[in-house]
């Protein structure tokens, strides 16, 4: 029924501007937008909406520079994210679906685009005319930097206030160099900020001595963006005993976040022989691996639930274990025990059992009464999470119940003209989410400053002459990221562990991508229902259908299959199953199969 309503919606499909852009169409029909969302799972899963098939195809064609630019459109820090991204895309990659093998190494390919682009590569930016508007950004972390970049493109004058001596936030002060080399970090931050963004480092925003009050920024600038992240550690909840309220007061106990930040500010850090890390995120793993490199003999990560449920990539856990770090599950620290000198001598844990699922997709852990047990250690690094700090605010902003600032999807806080983005709003998430959010908020600020939305997302539909893959590609094994030899790894603090793909590896891996942005479609008008396509299909990807479900939002749902000839309304290529091998295309007697490339693009309105 909703289908009938959809019937007339073709009006929303507009031909390309008469720029001889032959056969290309731009559409905002919910069915096309829905198609791209569902059929390019990686792109939909990417908080920044990176056009993944686009850049992987470019790599396949050895156009590394173009691949890098495609990345940059969505995410200004490809070289960085290509190393330390949490890779939500790879979890949903169609190549990883049952029977299809392993996920494409999307992240490593992103890095490849950055690594292999020509030395003389020049980034392209499309600049809007100056708007005369001024924007202040507090915090030069990923969210702030991404927003600064977009806002400056949009023609606004941007000034970033950063309290540290260098920009980057967690990127620079949280992530160790063996995961993120500093030269890469420097180049990409610089590229992002060089379009006239004024960066004022060493400036603390706040009401205190020698600090710049927020209210002043409010006066001096047309808009203020708060992207100060979640830069305080969550305190360790102990049941009782020494250091119940301030565990880090005990010698041998530190918060992982501070541990890493101090190290990256250049302070000399040391650890004991036996190091215990409490926590389950990237920070915890980083602490453990740093500790190993600082000479610890025995490093154990203690987690409340189990390995299966912690939010880090399997590769990361694997490398961590290879370096000798142990992971022990179902335990929470109950209290610390110190020797006569007041030095940490060990931890009393309580045994947990798994509880239900929490809304953030993690598992709850429920301590078991009387199941305490003791484990000795010399150093404890606490990395159970981070929280946002608001004490620098000298204006009244509405907060949510976690103490984070409330903001609408455009980033606008309760005070007009004051925006917030990144972890500062959402609480600690991932770098890619911060970047994605930073860009969305930048768009929000632009709309607010200019009084109207200047850009929108539509689907670009472009005919493709023929299949771009062959069936043989689907049997290529996942190309694993080469790593520095295990021996000696733990002796160097800054040597990058992952050494990167060379051209050959990149070429091989890029072939594995199904190029899900290609849409294979049978023109029912010319189909004679001969099923030649089904005969050659490599999977159960071409179906006899009698109907299709239309969802509330106007997108397609399930295909209703049938095997009864007099019910068959169409022979249809199920793009969710399709691996874009093109076999059907080659055999169709009436040439009724078309291939189009469907991609999101932003159009000026």
């Amino acid at each position, binding site marked *: 029924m909703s289908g009938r309503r959809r019937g007339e919606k073709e009006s929303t499909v507009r031909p390309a501007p008469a720029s001889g852009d032959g056969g290309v169409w731009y559409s905002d029909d919910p069915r096309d937008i829905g198609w791209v969302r569902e059929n390019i799972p990686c792109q939909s899963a990417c908080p920044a909406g990176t056009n993944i098939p686009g850049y992987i195809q470019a790599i396949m064609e050895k156009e590394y520079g173009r691949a890098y630019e495609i990345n940059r459109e969505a995410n200004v820090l490809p070289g960085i994210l290509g190393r330390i991204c949490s890779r939500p895309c790879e979890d949903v990659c169609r190549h990883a679906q049952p*029977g299809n093998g392993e996920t494409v190494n999307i992240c490593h390919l992103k890095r490849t685009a950055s690594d292999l682009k020509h030395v003389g590569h020049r980034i392209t930016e499309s600049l809007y005319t100056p708007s005369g508007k001024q924007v202040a950004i507090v915090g030069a972390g990923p969210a702030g930097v991404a927003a600064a970049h977009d806002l400056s493109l949009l023609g606004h004058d941007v000034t970033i206030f950063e309290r540290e001596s260098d920009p980057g936030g967690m990127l620079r002060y949280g992530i160790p160099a063996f995961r993120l080399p500093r030269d890469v970090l420097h180049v990409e931050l610089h590229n992002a900020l060089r379009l006239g963004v004024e960066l004022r480092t060493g400036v603390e925003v706040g009401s205190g001595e020698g600090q710049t009050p927020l209210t002043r920024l409010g006066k001096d600038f047309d808009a203020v963006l708060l992207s100060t992240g979640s830069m305080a550690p969550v305190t360790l909840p102990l049941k009782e005993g020494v250091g119940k309220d301030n565990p880090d007061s005990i010698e041998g106990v530190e918060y992982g976040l501070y541990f890493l930040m101090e190290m990256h500010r250049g302070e000399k850090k040391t650890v004991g022989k036996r190091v215990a890390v409490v926590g389950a995120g990237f920070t915890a793993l980083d602490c453990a691996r740093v500790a190993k490199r600082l000479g610890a003999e025995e490093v154990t990560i203690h987690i409340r639930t*189990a390995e299966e449920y912690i939010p880090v990539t399997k590769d990361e856990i*694997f490398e961590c274990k*290879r*370096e000798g770090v142990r992971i022990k599950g179902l335990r929470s620290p109950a209290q610390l025990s110190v020797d006569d000198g007041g030095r940490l001598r060990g931890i009393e844990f309580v*045994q947990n059992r798994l509880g239900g699922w929490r809304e953030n997709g993690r*598992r709850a852990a429920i301590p078991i009464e*009387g199941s305490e047990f003791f484990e000795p250690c010399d150093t404890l690094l606490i990395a159970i999470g981070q929280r946002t700090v608001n004490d620098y605010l000298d204006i009244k902003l509405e907060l949510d119940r976690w103490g984070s600032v409330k903001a609408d999807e455009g980033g606008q806080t309760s005070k007009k003209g004051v925006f917030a983005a990144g972890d500062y709003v959402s609480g600690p998430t991932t770098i890619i989410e911060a970047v994605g959010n930073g860009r969305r908020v930048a768009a929000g600020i632009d709309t607010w400053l200019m009084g109207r939305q200047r850009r929108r997302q539509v689907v670009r539909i472009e005919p493709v002459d023929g299949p771009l893959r062959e069936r043989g590609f689907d049997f290529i094994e996942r190309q694993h990221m080469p790593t520095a030899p*295990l021996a000696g790894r733990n002796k160097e603090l800054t040597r990058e562990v992952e050494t990167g793909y060379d051209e050959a590896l990149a070429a091989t891996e890029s072939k594995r991508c199904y190029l899900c942005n290609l849409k294979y479609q049978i023109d029912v008008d010319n189909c004679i229902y001969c099923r030649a396509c089904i005969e050659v299909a490599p999977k159960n990807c071409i179906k006899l259908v009698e109907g299709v479900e239309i969802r509330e939002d106007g997108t397609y749902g399930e295909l209703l299959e049938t095997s009864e000839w007099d019910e068959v309304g169409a022979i249809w290529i199920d793009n969710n199953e399709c691996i874009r091998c093109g076999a059907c295309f080659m055999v169709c007697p009436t040439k009724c199969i078309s291939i189009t490339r469907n991609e999101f693009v932003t159009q000026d309105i």
Partner: protein
Amino acid sequence: MAEPTHNVIIGNGSAGNGAAITLRERDPDSRITIITMGSLPFYNRYDLPRVFRGCDDWREILVHPLAYYDDNRITLRRNSRVTDVDGRSRSITFAHNEVMHYDQLLVCAGGRGYLPEELSDYYGLMHGFHSFEAAITTRRALPEGGTVVMLGGDMIGLDLARTLIDVGYRVALLANEYTFWPHRIDADERGGFIAALEHMGIEVVDGMRPVAVEEGAAGTPARRVVFDDGGSLDGDVVMPFYGLVPTAEFMLRSGVDIERGLLVDPQLHTTDPHIWAAGDVCQIWSAADNEYRFYYGWTNVRQMGEVAARNVTGTNEPFEGVDDERLHIGKDGHILSPFWEH
């Protein structure tokens, strides 16, 4: 709804088969299906050392005659790897793309040999002992009187070592914290047991950390194990024995709780009302120790299978593991382990 209930057992070991026959006795009308990745009917893993005594034909180590399955109306699904279990729809998906419905599911998938991550690159250069096929392949790779380099040396490995030495092979053991697994050995008694191993004729190398396995150079044995101090040890085959880790990957999307193994209550019930687990795949809540723990050894495993089966068919009895962890040295100087009694 005249359909008989379908009891499905994943795993063709002691636990699974113990469960199967118990189910048959207690529920004569039910459908019983045993699913296994292997291509052979149920045989006793503890008989595998016989392969090195020249046993060549799998028919010789079968626990039951082949007619057993028809006689007891047990369907055996061989070469069938489960890729997914969906607790909500109560269905099992096989690697070969078949979907099977179950009413009650017993997961007895057991465990596979653990290989420390730092050695994972060298998996291809090591030999296995986890199945009849693997044992035969290993034996074929082993020349007359050849040398086996054993890494770790859990009780399964040491059991094999006894046979190997008995039939004239050499065994070099790289002892470490996994030696004697699953027995927990206190530092003070360890020395004695190591000595006992040497008394058995095993050449023990203690405290060396292997970092690599390589193909032997021409004229030398087929394999070389390299230590972190640069030293090395040659052998014809290298066999890792670092204890077992549960085979539970296929349950990750089933909705049941997993730590290392499937977490079950003392009644061997998982967190899904229709799924039980038994054997090396499950971590049982022990009120005594206030933790989830594993119980190893043939007697325990078989027991678990039967208890689980009884609970599937209505009773609600807890599993009481025979928990004799003691490893001792007999008067003849040989090691005695409850783990070896079968």
